[in-house]
């Protein structure tokens, strides 16, 4: 199941675990990333908490936790090479995996069509 947030994150949800990243639209708006800070594995977040930080040459931006849950894995490849987020935002440039506190919460997120309408 692929879901999106109005804050330009995508979630690929399998068995109650969401792989989370930022959308191609967000990556393009941010420009070339030079730094990514990821959360600690095991950290618990509520929806809307600052979960990660991305920085371009110009500015720092927060990546919000899209739903309540616990971080089970982070993608160290993007801290080593932040440019991966720009080149493959919805693939190899994923940020973290989130074990959802309530899998049903995802139902309220945007589907791909609704997200595309949002950024149109």
């Amino acid at each position: 199941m692929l879901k999106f947030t109005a804050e330009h994150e995508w979630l690929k949800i399998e068995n109650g675990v969401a792989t989370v990243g930022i959308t191609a639209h967000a990556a393009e708006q941010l420009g070339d990333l030079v730094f990514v800070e990821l959360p600690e594995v095991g950290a618990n977040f509520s929806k809307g908490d600052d979960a990660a930080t991305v920085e371009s040459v110009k500015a720092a931006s927060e990546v919000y936790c899209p739903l309540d849950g616990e971080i089970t894995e982070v993608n160290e490849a993007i801290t080593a090479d932040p440019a991966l987020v720009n080149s493959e935002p919805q693939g190899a440039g994923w940020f973290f995996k989130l074990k959802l506190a309530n899998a049903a919460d995802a139902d309220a997120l945007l589907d791909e069509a609704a997200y595309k309408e949002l950024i149109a």
Partner: protein
Amino acid sequence: MDDTSALRQTPLHALHLSLGARMVPFAGYDMPVQYPAGVMKEHLHTRACAGLFDVSHMGQVIVRARSGNNTDAALALEKLVPVDVAGLKEDRQRYSLLTDENGTILDDLMIANRGDHFFIVVNAGCKDADFAHLQKNLSDTCDVTMLDDRALVALQGPHAQAVLAELWADVAEMKFMDVREVSLHDVPCLVSRSGYSGEDGFEISIPAADAVDIVNRLLEHPDVMPIGLGARDSLRLEAGLCLYGNDIDTTTSPVEAALEWAIQKVRRNGGARAGGFPGADRILSELENGAARRRVGLRPEGKAPVRAHAKLYADAEGREEIGEVTSGGFGPSVESPVAMGYVPTKISAPGTQVYAEVRGKYLPVTVAALPFITPTYKR
């Protein structure tokens, strides 16, 4: 900030849009922050080849002595700036500072001796206040005119000379800070060999009506890429150059800002025209005795950029606050974060370790010599 209706536009505004620029409000103008290439490529291209910047939002001012004697204009200007204006030779320009009675900085600016007048370029955000300040203080002896009908562009980078040579064969004769009035494709332009990137390059004042034509001719050259304000900022930061409003303002003195080099001997104690500018007591005293704090380069040890307004501490626990970062970001050419800020002079030596607070953490930062890159000015 969606309402851009009140923003002013430069003569190149439509060209920016046609080039696909992302526009942002800056100093009351709708300006390109980046083009489709993006800040990183624009920055690196400027250091490798040549970049073209629209800086038409900056103020272009003429000061002309009513006596007809340019020395009178020079001496009048010296009442407002701590630099040697009367000694500035014809067709030369010099970095300068407008100071206030507190010995702090109202603006930084370029002053060029054009023989029968002085040509001055001031920051966009200060230009109305500067113009009023110049008029108020100079109008008994000088005519002060804001040139509203001219564009200003900067062509910066190691290929800038070769690019400009295609429009003007004799460009190679110019040295750093020379100023010439030249005809570029039959358009009278004022060219100075200067800039704000740390690279060799030129700033070109063009009649507004001809600006698009001249800029298109420069952009036709395969080595030239249009560059937005984003890369302009990262370029100047690597070059250790101050941004007015960030690194210098009415809370900083020239000595605190490490701009002693801008104040020539003739205006210092013992000089033939010592003092006589606003705040001279403090500035002359600090030139001799130093100031309590100093602008320095800062190199974060990790990969996280440390940005403007980050607090600086002497210790890794955030107990003793010692200053603040005034500019900071990622330096694409040095391939690491770079910053500038103010620290107590007693701990301003390069190599000193301090700590910057970023998102609740205290990151080690080393005081570093400025600039971060080696400038390539053609002296």
